[in-house]
Every structure is written in structure tokens, then in C-alpha cells.
């Protein structure tokens, strides 16, 4: 038999009951963030910002200083924290309603100003917390609580691609889209969030990691089906990849 690797809970991930659904991507991403805070020893100098959405209680799971924010306004709260205390690392955590709907102006302008903080954008193509309504990122034809016949792009718009949008701006440092569609996707997500943290520490500027995430409950799928759905369908509308990695030509990748 091979070596048994014991998976330990990261210190920064608090030992409390989770409210997330089985198969939800938040659980994976929270763990990634907690592991990185442990590995990079950030606990004493990091502030997190929780959105309005399923992750509104993120401050119950991460053992770091955290602030709430009004719906959509996380980038402004981040700006306020970072401008007044540039020595602090700031991690912003937002869903697709928070970032791509009500908060569209805020994320574009924080990115445009090049605010030196990291955003984890959890894109699960739906509004989970409020009962499965359509999001700007909902796929064409997808049935939701507010598009019961399926999203009709002629009247309801088509999926909004945030990485591509922000990539038209001059200032962002790092814009990456990854997918939680299997172990490799989870590892890639961790790699780029780590890169974002290191970049922030080196004052590189605005970083955003968009993570395609499963919502088995409102996609009406099993957890396994939802990951397959990301791999085969969601990624067709939201291609994964590195859209912007400024200074990569000059420096080695910080994670190397």
C-alpha cells in the first residue's frame, strides 16, 4: 500500500458546522483560501470582505478579521480598507449577483483604478441565497426562478463575461478564470489565488480570479453532474485561462 496522506483542517478554517449545500463550490474555495492564509502566514495582516449572497456568513468560517459589505459594494469597501491601510492584505469574496449585477460599476472602477487587492469571483450562473433566480451569468436557456421558461437572450441578455470586460482596462494586474470541475481545476484555482496574494504583497495591483463553481441545488443536479456540467457546458460560455498577467514577461511567475 502507498503512503497515506492525512488531510488536516487548515488552522484558518474554523471547526464549525457549514450552512453550504452539499457539492457547493464555496466549501472548496473557502478551504483553498484558508490553506493559503496558513501557508503564507497572512492571518495577522489580512482583512477579508464578505458579500451578500450564499457566502454572507464567510466570516464564520475563516479565522481572520472580516467585514461585511452592502450588496455589490465590496470593491468600494476594499478600496476604503486598502487606501487607509496599504500594509494590510485585502481579500474580497463576491458572487455573480454581487459582482456582475448590482456591483458592476464598483468592480470596473476598482479595477480601473488598479486598487491593490484580490477578488475571488465565484461564478455559479445563478443567485443561490435568494432561491435560484437568474444572474447576469446565467446560461442561455437555463431555467431559474425568474426565467422559468429558460433565459431568453433576446429580452434578458446573454451571459456577462467579467474577465473579458475587465481586460479592456489598463490597470489590472491579474485576471484569470478557473473551473472547479475536478481535482486539476481545484489545483489550478489554488495556484492562481496564491499568485494573486503574492502579487498583492508585491504591490502589483488589482487581481481577480473568476472561479466557475457548482450549484447543485439550483442547477437541479447531483454534485457530480454539476461538475460535469461545468466541464462540458459552462466552460463553453466562460473559457478558462489567463486573460491578464501583467509583468509576467519581466518577472518569473511569483508562485514558482
Amino acid at each position: 500500500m502507498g503512503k497515506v496522506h492525512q488531510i488536516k483542517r487548515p488552522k484558518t478554517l474554523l471547526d464549525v458546522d457549514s450552512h453550504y449545500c452539499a457539492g457547493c463550490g464555496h466549501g472548496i474555495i473557502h478551504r483553498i483560501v484558508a490553506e493559503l492564509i496558513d501557508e503564507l502566514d497572512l492571518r495577522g495582516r489580512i482583512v477579508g470582505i464578505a458579500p451578500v449572497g450564499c457566502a454572507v456568513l464567510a466570516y464564520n468560517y475563516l479565522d481572520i478579521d472580516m467585514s461585511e459589505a452592502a450588496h455589490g459594494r465590496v470593491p468600494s469597501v476594499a478600496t476604503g480598507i486598502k487606501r487607509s491601510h496599504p500594509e494590510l492584505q485585502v481579500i474580497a469574496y463576491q458572487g455573480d449577483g454581487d459582482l456582475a449585477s448590482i456591483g458592476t460599476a464598483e468592480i470596473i472602477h476598482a479595477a480601473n483604478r488598479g486598487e491593490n487587492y484580490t477578488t475571488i469571483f465565484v461564478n455559479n450562473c445563478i443567485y443561490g441565497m435568494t432561491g435560484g433566480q437568474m444572474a447576469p451569468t446565467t446560461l442561455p436557456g437555463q431555467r431559474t426562478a425568474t426565467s422559468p421558461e429558460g433565459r431568453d437572450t433576446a429580452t434578458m441578455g446573454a451571459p456577462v463575461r467579467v474577465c473579458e470586460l475587465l481586460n479592456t482596462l489598463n490597470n489590472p494586474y491579474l485576471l484569470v478564470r478557473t473551473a472547479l470541475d475536478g481535482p486539476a481545476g481545484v489545483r489550478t484555482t489554488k495556484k492562481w489565488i496564491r499568485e494573486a496574494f503574492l502579487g498583492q504583497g508585491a504591490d502589483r495591483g488589482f487581481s481577480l480570479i473568476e472561479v466557475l463553481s457548482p450549484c447543485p441545488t439550483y442547477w437541479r443536479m447531483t454534485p457530480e453532474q454539476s461538475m460535469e456540467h461545468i466541464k462540458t457546458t459552462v466552460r463553453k460560455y466562460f473559457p478558462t485561462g489567463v486573460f491578464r498577467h501583467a509583468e509576467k514577461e519581466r518577472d518569473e511567475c511569483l508562485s514558482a
Partner: protein
Amino acid sequence: MDNRILITGNEAIGAGAIAAGCDCYFGYPITPQNELTAYMSRWMPARGRTFVQAESEISAINMVYGAAATGARAMTSSSSPGISLKQEGISYLAGSELPAVIVNVQRGGPGLGNIEPAQGDYFQAVKGGGHGDYHVIVLAPASVQEMYDLTMLAFDLADRWRNPALVLADGRIGQMMEPLTPHKKTKKRNLPPKDWALTGAENREKRVVKSFFPAIGELEQYNRHLASKYARIQRSESRAEEYFTEGAEVVLAAFGTVARLCREVVRKARKKGLPVGLLRPVTLWPFPAAHFEKLASSARAFLVVEMNAGQMVEDVRLATSCRLPVSFYGRMGGGVPEIGEIYRRTQKLLTAVSAKAAS
């Protein structure tokens, strides 16, 4: 040496904020307070402090929230429609017990209105504005010097009570120029330490800044905690100025720009031997009810003068329990009451109450 400077009211707010140690200013252009935003864009960076022109008033108030959460002294300013945009953020500040200073240089409303001075946001400032049971401390300057002094006071009150404070001015006082005597040295006030601020959980338990209490019963308990704080503020922080109220049969009541006009009316009246005085609230919340209650025993009538359709007049009636007539004269939509007109109505009211007393 005389260190007075001639300055606009709007800029005096900026000077007061900087003297008070404001760390961060987040603003957005809107008339008639652009002199303040421009002043801060120059002088905050010059002193190594933070200035950001946000993309909207909504973004600006949320930047204030973030900075305040770290323990910084943060401020934003706007005018009426922009203050409407900030209401959710103000509710969040109060609900999260964060200190912050918000400045409203009022203009005509409702809607887009105009860019003339008005006092139509009294209700918005004093009765809520945003959702939920909360109050902001409201200060009403009536001179360029008070724009400076009361802004400094706003920062101290906000820190003392962990609550947002609002400076309620208007376009006239904002854009007029008067001499200002800056303070030579800032008085050190006894303020509580910010042991709730988000500074990175080094060698301590984590802290959370929030206003969300979903567990059954928790939010009601929290609301009671806030209510008791507001009761303590009401008992200790109300401020008002009395001008020739001794023996006054008719007492004028006004705040801000209108109080300046009423002061002139009182001077004219007293020169003619008419028993007229002025009670000028300096804090609109907490409302100086005790001053009104006291004068209700000696005066025969109040005449409330405002640049709105009648807002503070309701609080005067409440404070005096309608024990005596409370009349109202107002101009709206940018109209400013004329001294002659206020004087004429004061005379008329005086005649009426004297006649009644004699009968």
C-alpha cells in the same frame, strides 16, 4: 498675528476635517459642494492623506465604510440627491457602529430640483433616511466658522459614540465667504480606543464588522443596545443657541442660513422694543427639546422659519407638546426667506398673541 483667512463655507468644512485628522475623504462631484471636493483633492494628498474621487456617491459611502472599519477617520460629502444615494450605506454604518462624517450641502428638491440652497432634507437627516431603527448625529452650521468647528466636532462625536455624524449645510452657507479663524492647536478629547477595528488579527482573536444578526432574538437585542446608546446621546449631546430669548413673547426657531436672517429680525425687533428672541438648534439630532420646553413656559408663540415646506416645525410642536401656538413660514425650491417678510410675520404674530393675552 491674525491668522484669519477668507474662505468659502465648503472649503471651511475641508479645513476643519483636515484639522480634525481626517485620514480619508471619498467624494463625487455635485453642485453646490464641489468646492469641498476640489479642496480635498488638493490638500489631502498634500498632507499625505487619502483622497479618492469615487465613481458614484454610493461607492463613496462604501469606501467610507471600509476605511472606518479599519479605525480610520473617514468622510464623504454630497448634496441632496447624492445623499439619497448614500442612505443604504449610512444605515450600514449605523448598524455596524462605525464612526464616519457625512456632509450634506442641501439644494432644492425633490428629484433633480435645482442648485439653489434649501433645507428640504431635514426629515431625511433627522428622521432616518435609510432603513431601520437608527439615528445619525446631525449638526447644523450657521456660519463659515461653524462649518469648520462643527465638522471637527462631528469627527469627535462620531468616534465617541461609534456612530455616523452628519453636517447639514446648504448651498448658501457652502458658497458664501466669511473670515475663518482656524484652531491653533487641536484640543485633545477623551475618546474611547478603537478596539473593534480591523487591523489584521495579529496575536489576538479575529474581529468582525457587520450588521447582520440572523439568529432568533439576536437582532432585537442588538437594536435595544443601539436604542440605549441613542438615549444616552440625547441626554448628553444636544446643543442650541439662544439669542435674546429672555422675556421673549415670540420666539423664532430656525437653523443654518435661515437662523442668520432670523438673528437680524430679532435685532431689528429688539431695537423697536419688541419682545422677540431666537432659539437656534445646533444639533438637529439630538433635537434640543429641553430648550423648547423651557421657553414654552415663558413665550406666547413660536415662529418656525425654514427653507422647506415645514419639517423642523413638527419637532418644535412635539417638543412643546403643542402647549402654545407654533406658526410656520417657509420658502421652498431654492427660495430664501426675506428679512422683511419674516419681520412682518413676527410683528403680526406678536400682535395676535398680545391681543389674545389681553382678552
